[in-house]
């Protein structure tokens, strides 16, 4: 069994989804949209998510993206496209909402 095989991990979408949902709940669970705090919220969500991902110690580079939008009837659409190695790299997107906020977090993991 080669050393490389032991280190190589495939990205686990389900586990990451759960991790991200917990980070979101932890930062904005139970709060209403607040223009003054939004900056802080997005920064905290991406930082907490990244910290937990890195702690897993897997051989990946990560990009975590968070979008928060006030619920006011506007339409919002997001899309992403990736040019990478489909056997080792992966992504996962989590959509969360409460009464006044929509939150979309995307995690991209690129094997080293």
């Amino acid at each position, binding site marked *: 069994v080669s050393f490389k095989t032991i280190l190589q991990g495939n990205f686990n979408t389900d586990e990451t989804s759960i991790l991200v949902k917990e980070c979101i709940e932890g930062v904005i669970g139970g709060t209403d*949209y607040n*223009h003054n705090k*939004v*900056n802080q*919220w*997005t*920064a905290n*969500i*991406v*930082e907490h*998510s*990244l910290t937990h*991902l*890195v702690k897993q110690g897997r051989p990946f*580079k*990560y*990009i*975590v*993206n*968070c*979008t*928060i*939008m*006030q*619920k*006011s*009837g*506007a*339409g*919002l*659409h*997001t*899309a*992403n*496209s*990736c*040019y*990478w*190695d489909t056997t080792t*790299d992966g*992504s996962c997107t989590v959509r969360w909402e409460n009464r006044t906020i929509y939150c979309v977090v*995307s995690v*991209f993991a*690129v094997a080293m």
Partner: protein
Amino acid sequence: MDDFMSEDKVGCSVETVIGENSYKHGRVNQWTTSVVEQCLIQLSKLDKPFKFIVNCIIMQKNGAGLQTASTCFWDNNTDGSCTVRWENDTMYVIISVFGLAI
């Protein structure tokens, strides 16, 4: 990464796909897909040893607040990103490109 990353290339893709169109719920899906595809095609044509991630957000202008943030765990010497904000009368478009060295 920064030496070839050009905001113009991305801005061009958006102009070509959306241009002066008004926000239309039925077409937005198509637009986001086309914009990310166009950008990715242009980037892969550069033939550099990078993996790319292109992210696009389109929001209707109606007074709602929107905030986005990204954080990355990578090699600061070789990897990089670029974000382009574009708008017309009825919508905001935000495109982020991340390039990771192979």
